[in-house]
C-alpha cells in the first residue's frame, strides 16, 4: 500500500512512483483555497485572483491517500517522551505523526535564522507572514511570530499539514486591522521565488501522467534547475539561491540575496519575462519564437540543454512516435522537406524519435530542402527552437511576479506523498533522487531504530534529526543559512560605515 514503510522499500531506477493519486490530477485545486467552513475571519480574507490560482503543488491535497488511523492508543502516542510507535499502518497524515515531526525533526532554529538574517530576532522574522493549512483544511493567513520558539509552539498546537511563507510586512501582520491607515500595512520584502512543476510539461511528457513522476521525467526538473541556477548567478549576480524539492513533482527556488528580496513587482515581472520562452497555450502552435543569433542567456542554456536532449528527450521521452510526429513537422520550416519527411514516416510510423530527428538533417543534406526559401541556417535555427521547446524551463511565472505571493516552506511534509520538502544541492543536482527523499514515517522509524545513544563525544546532545536520513539535508541548509548570514552581516556593516553620522568624525 502507498506510504507504508517496509525495510525493503528502496526505489530502483525508472520505477514509477508508487504514490499516485486516486483521481485525475490534471485537474487542480486552488492555492490558498480556504475551506468553506474556515473557522477564523483571517482564513476567508483572500482575494479572488488568489482563489483562482491553481498551485499544482496543492492539488495533491484533494487526492491525498486515505487516512489510516494508527491502531495504537492515541493518548500514549501523544506523550512526547515515549518513543513513537511507527507501524506499517501509520501514515504521514496521522496527527500524531505530524506532531512528532514538528517536535523532533523540523529544523525550526535554522528556518528562523534563514528568514531572520541574524541570530537575534528582528522584524525580518517578526513581521513575516506565515499561512497555515490545518488538518481540517482550514487556511489561516497572516500568522506571525516574534521568535522561533513561539513559532514552534503554534506548530505543535495546531499541527498544520503544511505552511507557506509570505513577505515581510511594514507592520506585524497580526496587527494589520488595528492600523489606522490601510496603506501603512504593505509588503516590503520577500525572497525572489520560482516554481517549476511537472504539470507544465504534460504536453511533452510521455512516461507518466498526472501526479506521478519517474526518473525519466524528473530530468525536466533537473534541466530547469541547471539553466535557472546559472542564469541567476551569472546574469543577475545572485549568490544565495536555495533549491527545494516540492515534495512530489517539482522544485522551488528561493533567491535570498538582499538585492533580490527588495525587488518590487515590476522588477520581479521583468525577471520572469527574461526567463519566459514558451508563448501561447495549447492552441498556440509553434511556441518558441526567438531571435537568432540567440541572446547570450539562451545560447548558454542551449549549450547545457543540448547535452540532455538526446538522452532525456529523444530516447527516454520518445515524443514523436506515431501520429505525434505531426507536431514535429509543424515546427519545421520547409514545405518540401516536410513532405519528404511525412512520406518517410508514414511508411514506418513506429520509427523512434531519435531516428526521426536524424532524418531531418539527413534528408535536408540529401537535397530535400527546397533551396529557394530555406537555407541550412533556417533549418538549424528551427532545430534549436525545437530543442528549446522540449527542454527549456517552464516556469509557473505568476509565482515569481508578485512580492506577496506565498510559497510552501522548505522542510514541510508534502501531504500527498509524506515526503519532506528537502533542499536540493545544485552541485549534485543530477544525483538528486525525488523518489529516494525520506518520508516522515520513515524518518520517525529511523529515530526509533537509532542505537547510537543521545550524547556526542563532545558531550552535546544528539538531536533527533541527526539520527535520521534527514541529517544531510539539514546540514546542507545550515551551511546555506550560515553563508547568507555572513553576507548579511558584512552588508549591514558596510551600510553603517557608508551612511555613518559625519559628526562622529569630530
Amino acid at each position, binding site marked *: 500500500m502507498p506510504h507504508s514503510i517496509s525495510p525493503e522499500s528502496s526505489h530502483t531506477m525508472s520505477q514509477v512512483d508508487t504514490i499516485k493519486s486516486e483521481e485525475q490530477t490534471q485537474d487542480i485545486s486552488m492555492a490558498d483555497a480556504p475551506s468553506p467552513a474556515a473557522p477564523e475571519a483571517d482564513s476567508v480574507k483572500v482575494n479572488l485572483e488568489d482563489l483562482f490560482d491553481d498551485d499544482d503543488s496543492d492539488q495533491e491535497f484533494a487526492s491525498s491517500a486515505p487516512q489510516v488511523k494508527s491502531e495504537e492508543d492515541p493518548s500514549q502516542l501523544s506523550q512526547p517522551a515515549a518513543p513513537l510507535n511507527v507501524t506499517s499502518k501509520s501514515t504521514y497524515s496521522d496527527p500524531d505523526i505530524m506532531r512528532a515531526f514538528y517536535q523532533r525533526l523540523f529544523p525550526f532554529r535554522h528556518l528562523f535564522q534563514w528568514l531572520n538574517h541574524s541570530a537575534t530576532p528582528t522584524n525580518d522574522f517578526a513581521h513575516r507572514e506565515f499561512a497555515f493549512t490545518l488538518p481540517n483544511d482550514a487556511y489561516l493567513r497572516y500568522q506571525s511570530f516574534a521568535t522561533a520558539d513561539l513559532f514552534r509552539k503554534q506548530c505543535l498546537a495546531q499541527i498544520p499539514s503544511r505552511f507557506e511563507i509570505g513577505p515581510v510586512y511594514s507592520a506585524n501582520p497580526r496587527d494589520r486591522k488595528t492600523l489606522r491607515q490601510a*496603506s501603512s500595512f504593505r509588503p516590503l520584502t520577500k525572497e525572489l521565488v520560482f516554481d517549476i512543476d511537472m504539470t507544465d510539461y504534460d504536453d511533452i511528457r510521455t512516461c507518466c501522467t498526472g501526479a506521478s513522476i519517474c526518473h525519466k521525467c524528473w530530468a525536466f526538473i533537473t534541466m530547469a534547475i541547471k539553466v535557472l541556477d546559472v542564469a541567476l548567478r551569472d*546574469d543577475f549576480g545572485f549568490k544565495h539561491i536555495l533549491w527545494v524539492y516540492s515534495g512530489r513533482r517539482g522544485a522551488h527556488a528561493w533567491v535570498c540575496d538582499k538585492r533580490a528580496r527588495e525587488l518590487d513587482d515590476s522588477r520581479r515581472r521583468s525577471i520572469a519575462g527574461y526567463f519566459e520562452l514558451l508563448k501561447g497555450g495549447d492552441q498556440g502552435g509553434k511556441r518558441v519564437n526567438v531571435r537568432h543569433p540567440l541572446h547570450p*542567456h539562451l545560447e548558454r542554456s542551449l549549450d547545457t540543454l543540448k547535452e540532455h536532449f538526446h538522452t532525456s528527450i529523444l530516447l527516454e521521452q520518445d515524443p514523436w512516435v506515431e501520429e505525434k510526429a505531426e507536431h514535429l513537422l509543424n515546427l519545421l520550416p520547409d514545405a518540401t522537406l516536410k513532405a519528404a519527411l511525412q512520406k518517410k514516416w508514414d511508411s514506418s510510423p513506429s520509427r523512434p524519435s531519435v531516428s526521426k530527428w536524424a532524418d531531418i538533417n539527413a534528408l535536408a543534406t540529401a537535397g530535400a530542402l527546397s533551396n529557394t526559401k530555406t537555407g541550412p541556417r533556417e533549418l538549424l535555427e528551427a532545430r534549436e527552437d525545437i530543442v528549446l521547446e522540449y527542454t527549456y524551463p517552464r516556469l509557473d511565472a505568476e509565482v515569481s511576479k508578485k512580492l506577496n505571493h506565498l510559497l510552501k516552506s522548505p522542510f514541510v511534509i508534502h501531504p500527498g506523498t509524506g515526503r519532506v520538502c528537502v533542499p536540493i544541492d545544485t552541485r549534485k543536482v543530477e544525483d538528486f533522487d525525488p523518489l529516494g527523499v525520506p518520508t516522515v514515517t520513515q524518518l520517525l522509524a529511523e529515530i526509533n531504530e537509532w542505537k547510537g545513544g543521545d550524547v556526542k563525544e563532545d558531550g552535546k546532545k544528539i538531536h533527533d534529526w541527526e539520527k535520521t536520513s534527514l541529517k544531510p539535508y539539514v546540514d546542507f541548509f545550515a551551511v546555506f543559512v550560515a553563508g547568507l548570514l555572513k553576507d548579511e552581516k558584512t552588508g549591514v556593516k558596510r551600510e553603517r560605515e557608508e551612511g555613518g553620522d559625519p559628526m562622529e568624525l569630530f
Partner: protein
Amino acid sequence: MIRHDYSRVDPKRRANIHHNKKQFAKAEFQQQTYEHRLNYYDVPPTAEITLEEFETWAINRLKVLSELEACSFRNRSQDETAEYMTNILAKHLPLRSNSSRGQNLQEERKKDHYSHFILRLAFSSTEDLRRRFSRLETALFRLRFKSDDLKERKEWVSTLNLEWEEVGDAEKAEISKQLAAAGNMKKEDDQEWFKVDWERVPELVDQRRVFLKRGKAYVPQKEQLSLVVAEFTKRLDEALELTARALPRLDEDDRLAPILAHLSQSFTAPDAAYTSSDASIDGLSTITSGAIDSLATNFPLCMQSLHNKLRADSHLKHYGRLQYTLFLKGIGLSLEECIIFWRRSFKLMTDDKFQKEYKYNIRHAYGDVGGDSNRRGRGYSPYSCQKILTEPLPGPGQSHGCPYRTFTQDNLMTMLQRTGINDRDLLKTIKEDVTKQRYHVACNRVFEHAHRKEIKKVKDDGSWTSNDLDTIVHPNTYFKRSWLLKHLGEGNAGMVNGKGEQMEM
C-alpha cells in the same frame, strides 16, 4: 482687467499640494523659467494660478491621457499612436521645442508642468489610479522624448545626472559577441555601451534586449530611451507614493477637493465598461444553467472558445474559469444556476471535490463570500476586452484570453469557420487585423458580418441609433447586442429553448 475669480491659494494650502515644504519655503511666489521642453517633474510648481486655469489645464491633460489610453487599447502601434496623437496634443497640450521659435514656449511649458502636478494630486489616492496615471504619463513622456529635437534632447539628458558607467574598450572587446547578440546588431556596429544595475532597465531585461553580467545590464546607446523612460517612471512612482501619503490633509481644502474628485472620477469611467444594464435584456427570460449551450451561439469568440473547451474536456483551468464565470454572471446567470452549471460541466469530478475546491470560488466571484469589500462590490466585474487583452498569455493547458490574440492564425481560422464564418475576403481581412494586433477590430468585424442582415434592418427602420451600434469593447455587450439582434421583433417571446439547441446540433 477683471480678475474676480483669481483665487490666491494661500501658502499654507499650497504647501499641502506637495509634501516637500522646504522647496516651497524657498521658492514661494516664484515664476519658474523652463529652459528645456522635456520635464522630469522633479520640482513642483510654485507660482499662483487661477482656479479656472487649475481646472481647464487639468481637463486638457486628462483628454490627452485618455486618448493615449484609447490608443493602447486599440492596439495601435507606436507609430500609429504618434500620428494619431499629433493633432490632439497640438490642440490640448502643445509643447514645442526651442528651435520652433514659438511665441508661447514658456506658457506651454508652464501649463504642461502645472497640469501634470494637478493630475498627480487627483490620481494619487488609490493604487489603481496611481498605476494607470504612471503608465499613461510614461507613454506621453516617451512620445515627446522621441519627437524631441535631437540636439535639445541631448542637452536635456546631460542635465539629468543618470550615473551611467561607460564600458571601456578592453571589456567591450572581450564581450563583443554577447553584446551584439543581446542587442540584436551586427558585431561591426561600433556603439557606446553603458553599464547600469539591471533594476534600472526592467523593460529591456524583460524582453532580453540587454546583455546581463553579474547584476549589471549592458545598455547600448540606442536604448537610451529605455533608460530615460525607466528613470522617469521610477521618479514618478516614488513621487506618487509620497503624494498619496500627504493627501489626507488636502481634503480640508473645500475648493480643490471637488475638482480633484471630479477629475479622478472621469478618469475611472472609461474602463468600467460593464454596467448592470448589460445583464437585463428585454425579452430574455431568466437564464438557467441548461440554457447556456444554446445561448453560446451569441457569445463572442473568447467565450465560445472557453465554452467549447469546457465541453470538450469537462474542465477549465483557473483563469479560464474566472473569465467565464464572470461573463456568465454578467449575462444574468444567478449564483445558484452558475453553481449548477459548473457542477454539471465538471462531469468527471466527484461531488466532494467540487464542493471543497470549486464552489467557494464561484461564490466568491459573485461576492457571496469573501471580505467586506468583495461582498459590497458583489464580487469582481465581468472582464472587459481591455482586461482580457492585457492579461498574461495562456500557458500550457490554459485557454483564457482573447482567441484573436492567443490562437495561431490557422487555429483561429478553423475556429471562425466552425462558427460559420466562411467569407474568404473577411477571413483575409481578419488575418491582417490580427497581424497588426487589432484584435478587437477583428472581433467587431466578425460581429458585424455575423449580424449584417439584422444590423441593416435596425439601421433602415431607425429602431437602433448609431450609439447602439458603436464599437464593442466588452464581451457582455457583445452578447447582449447579438442576442437582441437575433431576436428582433420577438418581444417578450421568452427563452429560445429548443430552437437554440437545434441550432447547436
